[in-house]
């Protein structure tokens, strides 16, 4: 039986109490390599499914309630506790920097949608070589324009939010939302953050916004990509 890892915290991180995780497996929280870790015994690395994604997140969310810790990406499974300890030991410096970065913080997400800026065009079938190449070139131009527009919005948003965010991470999308931004916010600044998002939204009637959070800091756990 191997070990499936949900999250890692400092050794003195409060334990939220009994809970179940992926596939109903019990979650336990031993100290491994000097960290408090939350894990379940699973026979193999679980295949991804929506239910399992929800279970993975539910454990992390509950553990993050009293204090922030480092959420794992889905699928971190180890044959043995020794293997897990070696993996933690080998990344100790990055984990410690990550824990410091997210201390007392939560993450929010904003998707910015520009109804006046459509998604990049579909590439047509290849029945005509010239039409196909022209469509490819058009799609490339549109993607570049979308990214430029997204970058402008992301910069304006970051400037408007100012000192109430610790960090912003923005991704530019080729379809759907123009930009998906994540913000790292101190827990005591979430009220200010929501208010500034609201005023930014009011100042930009040309855009639509979808705010979500607070989340565990999935997007700010590592400074090395």
């Amino acid at each position, binding site marked *: 039986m191997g070990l499936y*890892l949900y999250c*890692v915290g400092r050794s003195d991180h409060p334990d939220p109490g009994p809970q179940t995780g992926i596939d109903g497996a019990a979650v336990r929280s031993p100290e491994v390599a000097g960290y408090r870790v939350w894990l379940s015994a699973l026979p193999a*690395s679980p*295949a*991804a*499914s*929506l239910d399992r*994604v*929800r279970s*993975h*997140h539910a454990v992390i969310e509950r553990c993050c309630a009293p204090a922030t810790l*480092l*959420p*794992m*990406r*889905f*699928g*971190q*499974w*180890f044959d043995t506790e020794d293997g*897990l300890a070696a*993996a*933690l030991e080998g*990344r100790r410096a990055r*984990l410690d920097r*990550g824990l410091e970065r997210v201390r007392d913080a939560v993450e929010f*997400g904003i*998707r910015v*949608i520009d*109804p006046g800026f459509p*998604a990049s065009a579909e590439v047509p079938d290849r029945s005509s070589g010239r039409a196909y190449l022209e469509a490819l070139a058009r799609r490339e131009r549109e993607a570049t324009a979308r990214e430029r527009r997204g970058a402008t919005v992301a910069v304006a948003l970051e400037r408007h939010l100012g000192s109430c965010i610790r960090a912003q991470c923005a991704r530019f999308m080729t*379809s*759907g*939302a123009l930009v*998906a931004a994540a913000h790292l916010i101190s827990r005591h600044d979430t009220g200010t953050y929501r208010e500034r998002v609201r005023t930014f939204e009011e100042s930009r009637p040309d855009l*639509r916004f*979808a*705010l*979500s959070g607070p*989340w565990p800091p*999935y*997007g700010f*756990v*590592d400074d090395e990509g």
Partner: protein
Amino acid sequence: MESSPPVAWGERVRLVELVDRVLDRGVVLRGDVIISVAGIDLVYLELRLLLSSVETLAHPDKAVGDPP
């Protein structure tokens, strides 16, 4: 064909954001553990079926289950 109950706009956003975070972000301790592309695609397929269309995020005014 049985249809899923409508999912409110806020819950749609939350589900898309949740899946993106859990599958694509967070700490990776084992770089050799890679979730198969097929596995990830299946999760997005489940999500799409549940939400009717993830692309409705581009049109929140048309989403099913919006608050009045």
